[in-house]
């Protein structure tokens, strides 16, 4: 019995030494590879080719947005970004699967009893509430501004949505999630995410279909620099912003109290 125990211990030690050795080897090899890489920002690099030149030179005239990054992610390489938004949605689904506050079908008790304990938020913390009162309107407006100006200046759906999501989380922490759930309950959340992603997918379906079949898109690019310009980029940014904000808030709600409440009592 004791021998078997010793054997296990030796095996475990050997396993630890092996894993450290494998990690160190990988790190060394990758560092050597980095030393072989072309110098960062060098003019003769293989990455300095016609691909990036076209993005920089004709991004605004072809995509319609002054912000070239917006042109790249929402027009040139929109399929990748569509996939990326669905990664967020998949992650939200998985957290829903894992953490939703499920009730036992028989007696209606929560399957995870700890969730019934008094949550962190909802305490009347006047400092937090006071700060939130000042920060919230500014934060929400700033987020909306970044989403809406995504095609004109730095930012866009991902960054603006993250700011809106953070503001929603601050609201829930300061005033309790029940207040927020009067408007953003589980049903509203589902429908918001659904409509944003569906609009996104439909708009891109139209764009891909017309692009591949050589049909002229009927959506005008507009005059670069105006708020209503950039073709589809503005509505797409709004959709991405909604998805990101909803996902961020859902993560908070799920991890802190096991789910987004249904709103009513």
């Amino acid at each position, binding site marked *: 019995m004791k021998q078997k125990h010793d054997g296990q211990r030796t095996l475990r030690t050997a396993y630890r030494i092996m894993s450290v050795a494998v990690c160190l080897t990988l790190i060394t*090899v*990758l560092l*050597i*590879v980095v030393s*072989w*890489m*072309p110098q960062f920002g060098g003019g003769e*690099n*293989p*990455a*300095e*080719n*016609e*691909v990036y030149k*076209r*993005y920089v030179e004709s991004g605004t005239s*072809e995509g319609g947005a002054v912000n070239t990054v917006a042109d790249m992610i929402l*027009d*040139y*390489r*929109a*399929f*990748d970004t*569509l*996939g*990326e938004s*669905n*990664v967020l*949605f*998949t*992650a939200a*689904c*998985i957290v*829903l*699967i*894992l953490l*939703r506050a*499920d009730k036992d*079908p028989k007696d209606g008790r929560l*399957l995870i009893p700890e969730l019934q304990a008094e949550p962190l938020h909802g305490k009347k913390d006047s400092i937090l509430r006071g700060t939130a009162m000042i920060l919230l309107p500014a934060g929400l407006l700033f987020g909306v501004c970044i989403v809406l100006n995504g095609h004109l200046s730095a930012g866009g759906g991902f960054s603006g949505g993250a700011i809106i999501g953070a503001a929603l989380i601050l609201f829930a922490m300061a005033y309790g999630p029940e207040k927020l759930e009067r408007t953003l309950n589980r049903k509203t959340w*589902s*429908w918001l*995410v*659904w409509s944003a*992603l*569906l609009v996104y*997918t*439909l708009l*891109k*379906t139209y*764009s*891909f*279909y*017309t*692009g*591949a*079949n*050589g049909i002229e*898109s009927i959506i005008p690019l507009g005059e670069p620099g105006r708020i209503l310009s950039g073709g589809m980029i503005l509505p797409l940014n709004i959709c991405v912003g909604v998805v990101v904000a909803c996902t961020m808030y859902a993560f908070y709600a799920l991890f802190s109290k096991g789910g987004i409440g249904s709103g009513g009592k």
Partner: protein
Amino acid sequence: MTLVQNFPFAAIMMCLAGGVTCVVLRPRAARAFAVLLNAVIAGMMTAVLLFTIRTGESYVYLMGHFPAPWGNEIRIGPLEALMALMFSLVTTVILAGGMQNICEDVEPDKTKLYSAVICLMTASLLALTFTNDLFTAYVFVEINTLTSCALVMLRYRSGMALSASIRYLIMSLLGSGLFLIGVVILYNITGHLLMEPIGAAVRNLAATGEYAFPLTITLGLFAVGLALKSALWPFSSWLPDAHASATTASSGILSGLVLKGYIILLIKIIYRMIGPEVVAAEGVLNVLFGLGTGAIIAGSLYALREKDSKRMLAYSSIAQIGYIFAGIGLGTETGMICACIQILAHAVTKPMLFCAAGNMASEAGGHRFDQLRGMGRRRPLLGIAFAAGALSMIGIPLFAGFATKYFLCKAAIGAAGWKGIVALAAVVVSTVLNALYYLPAIQILFDREPDTKTGQAAGRGSVLAAAAIAVFLVLQFGLGFFFSRIAEIIRTGLNTLA
């Protein structure tokens, strides 16, 4: 551009939109929706396959108004269409066949999330098959990783499923990470993400000897990363728990389809980006071949010791994945055809085995073999399906598994040097080993059952399961009878791939 040519793009978009829609549907409607969506896509892929066979070449479909390398594009040839058809068809059938188990294993209101995850999974498999761009591939590898872990952990309140999915997640993310580092290095030394320009640049680099070390490391990272995700032995320690603890439909999809998505990506990388001759010169093929033959033997040895039906099937998957890598590792065209045929054969066989075992287990109350004793007599169709699957895995002629062994032997005889002899030896040894663990399993299923068991009323789920089994049997024998015709399609597909 004809209407049919739009189908691959439409299928991906339908899956993405369908995944979101499942979340707002009622659970029952969502389950039906996922099955129907996959069935419709299977129909569309059949049309695409017929179209590409008729034209005999591949075509590029622009995803937007800008041609690659500026925009995104997908590329569809006979091989891609065949694989996409297989993915959507098998998903449809195994979902129908495992529906009863889904309702038992997954909490009722979460079955709609299950449907959503299935739709996203199909989208990622289709995109991985059709993509012509390395970064698009990575994005959909991410979706595939997340959804496949979700499929494992959706098993109702099973602690085992949770721990298995965490192990799976860690190993799978490690694979994605290595793959991503490979993409970054390759972009740095070639300046492209699109497959053709990378291919041209890599051939150039290989000829001049520039960036030789990063190129070797990139190949190694791709091979190890994708081997981790497709459970090539010895990177397969996560597989048995994950596949055995998931619900029936998940086990079928994970073993039959998810592992194959990454292998198809690897085949595309070898053919379209790096070039077979560069890969062979780097020695990566030899490593893959060695691990593949190791997997054939090791997987069978593990399966031999197993007393649990689902774990035995999971270990058998490790051996079957070994055949694919052994075929790729031989480095000849016949070897590659063997790999593709094996992808199809395993995809129609293993889900059928899981479907039969899962449905028998839900009636018998457990999936250990001592609990399943005599179930084949009580449910003859399921028993016959299990027996057919087992015979196919052993490699009896007229079953799908025979096609693999036939092409592997053919490729081994054609291969030069030590590889041919090793491959032949592996085929012989593994056939004996497969028979050693599958035949006793069939015997137990058709054993005289003890009288104590009480029969359970057959519900609607079992009607669906019977229909699914019937379709699987048709696919099984279809592949077993007409494998030379399918091999021709694959040969055309491989030629258009390069």
